[in-house]
């Protein structure tokens, strides 16, 4: 085993060696600009991009013409949300999203508000799922876009995308989903799922960083977005800029591998994830965050009450995980996603997110289980809150000398 063990695959994934092999020739041998029409360098690059576009399209069930390559999912979210606002502004200025979205979506929505739009932020239930009735109630005759993520990056909860898209369709509203954590992990089919716009990225599915895509539906309805990057009119005029050919080739290869191996991989990861979770839940006062029935196969988010997340991460330095506590920031804010679920601050501060991946082994999971157990026990031995809990003192009754 190599330490630290990487269990933060929701942040990013290592590149699959097969992806790297596919990309390498496009850095020096086949370096052409895919927009060069006058020589073989350009044609070769264009051919490679076309092929990758098909690989990407095949994974999500769309045609290659519906893929707009971007620099990643953040840009794709921005293009979808601001692009729809600018393109369809004459039909309405209202959008609906959820408080547990990624910052790329929330901040793009904030920008829409600054530009004069209105945004409704739905609160999810305790388990992270939204109430469809809340969604329906939020719709007005000015609503032009519903943007709700497919699988959540912190807790892995998968929304009922088919039901959400049906509501959007019934009301003549476009539906965008941020599927960054989902594509390549579980089957996503934009037609069956009724998705009009979808953001995703290569580096969460064993491809390179710096390349992602926005799916833009071309039929029933034909969707357009106003470009946010102006220039040479690449990508059907929706995203100018010289195409990142090696990145796109890698993205295509990563999609092809995912398509071939996803089914088996999802089972393997969910078995490992469930074992990790079951073992960690044998620790007293440990809780899973988010719905466990509708969840990505590789994610577990667990709170260990009475220990602090950053201290816990320091005690688990042989595994690379992510904490819901952002104590390093001056604000000491715990995760807004966990807070949105209604978690107490102290539970939100005490959480670890485990993201398993293609290269995670059973041996590594065994180690992680013991490592986390040891660290939690050690920190509880020095936690005044744990002592009070054990003495039967209700922490809510204590007047804290807040700082």
């Amino acid at each position: 085993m190599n330490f630290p063990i990487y269990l933060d695959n929701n942040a990013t994934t290592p590149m699959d060696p097969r992806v790297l092999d596919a990309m390498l020739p496009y850095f020096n041998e086949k370096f052409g600009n895919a927009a060069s029409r006058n020589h073989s360098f350009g044609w070769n690059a264009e051919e490679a991009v076309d092929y990758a576009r098909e690989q990407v399209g095949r994974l999500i069930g769309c045609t290659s013409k519906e893929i707009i390559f971007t620099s990643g999912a953040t840009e794709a979210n921005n293009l979808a949300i601001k692009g729809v606002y600018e393109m369809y502004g004459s039909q309405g200025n209202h959008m609906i999203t959820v408080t547990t979205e990624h910052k790329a979506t929330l901040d793009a929505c904030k920008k829409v508000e600054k530009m004069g739009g209105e945004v409704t932020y739905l609160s999810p239930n305790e388990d992270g799922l939204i109430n469809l009735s809340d969604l329906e109630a939020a719709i007005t005759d000015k609503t032009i876009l519903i943007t709700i993520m497919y699988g959540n990056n912190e807790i892995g909860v998968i929304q009922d995308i088919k039901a959400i898209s049906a509501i959007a369709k019934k009301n003549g509203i476009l539906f965008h989903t941020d599927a960054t954590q989902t594509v390549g992990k579980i089957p996503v089919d934009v037609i069956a799922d009724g998705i009009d716009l979808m953001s995703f990225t290569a580096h969460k599915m064993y491809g390179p960083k710096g390349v992602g895509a926005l799916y833009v539906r071309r039929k029933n309805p034909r969707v357009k977005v106003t470009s946010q990057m102006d220039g040479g009119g690449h990508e059907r005029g929706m995203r100018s800029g010289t195409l990142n050919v090696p990145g796109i080739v890698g993205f295509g290869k990563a999609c092809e591998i995912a398509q071939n191996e996803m089914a088996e991989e999802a089972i393997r990861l969910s078995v490992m994830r469930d074992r990790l979770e079951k073992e960690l839940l044998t620790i007293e006062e440990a809780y899973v965050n988010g719905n466990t029935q509708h969840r990505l196969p590789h994610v577990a988010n667990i709170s260990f009450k009475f220990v602090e997340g950053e201290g816990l991460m320091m005690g688990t330095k042989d595994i690379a995980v992510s904490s819901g506590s952002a104590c390093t920031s001056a604000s000491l804010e715990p995760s807004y996603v966990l807070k949105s679920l209604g978690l107490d601050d102290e539970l939100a501060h005490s959480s670890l997110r485990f993201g398993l991946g293609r290269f995670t082994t059973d041996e590594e999971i065994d180690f992680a289980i013991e490592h986390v157990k040891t660290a939690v026990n050690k920190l509880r031995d020095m936690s005044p809150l744990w002592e009070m809990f054990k003495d039967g003192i209700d922490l809510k009754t204590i007047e804290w000398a807040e700082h």
Partner: protein
Amino acid sequence: MAYSEKVIDHYQNPRNIGTLNKESKMVGTGLVGAPECGDVMRLQIEVDDATGIIKDAKFKTFGCGSAIASSSLATEWLKGKTIEAAMEIDNMDIVEELALPPVKIHCSVLAEDAIKMAINDYRVKQGLAPIEDNKKHY
């Protein structure tokens, strides 16, 4: 963010973890911070009746490595000091000793507050007035 070697040492080998009898007249307890802020520190001192010297100090801390290290260091420094000398411990001494980065200065402030609260708890038990702390933390 990288922790200093001293923070890591205190985190891995914390000194003086434990609990003193908070009902004892000779024990002063300071409990500062709040769970929702991600830091709670409890610091206790036991004063020798005859000499007025702090003969034991214990802590328990819920928080990050810097918070744990700050309180662990504080207990080390408290032992053997008179109450008066303990009052002089400044949070910036802790910052310096542990090489805390600016975002972790609040951990040292918490430790200083815990020391003063413990001392005042002891003083009140002894029938003395608590010492006002007018120091401003920037």
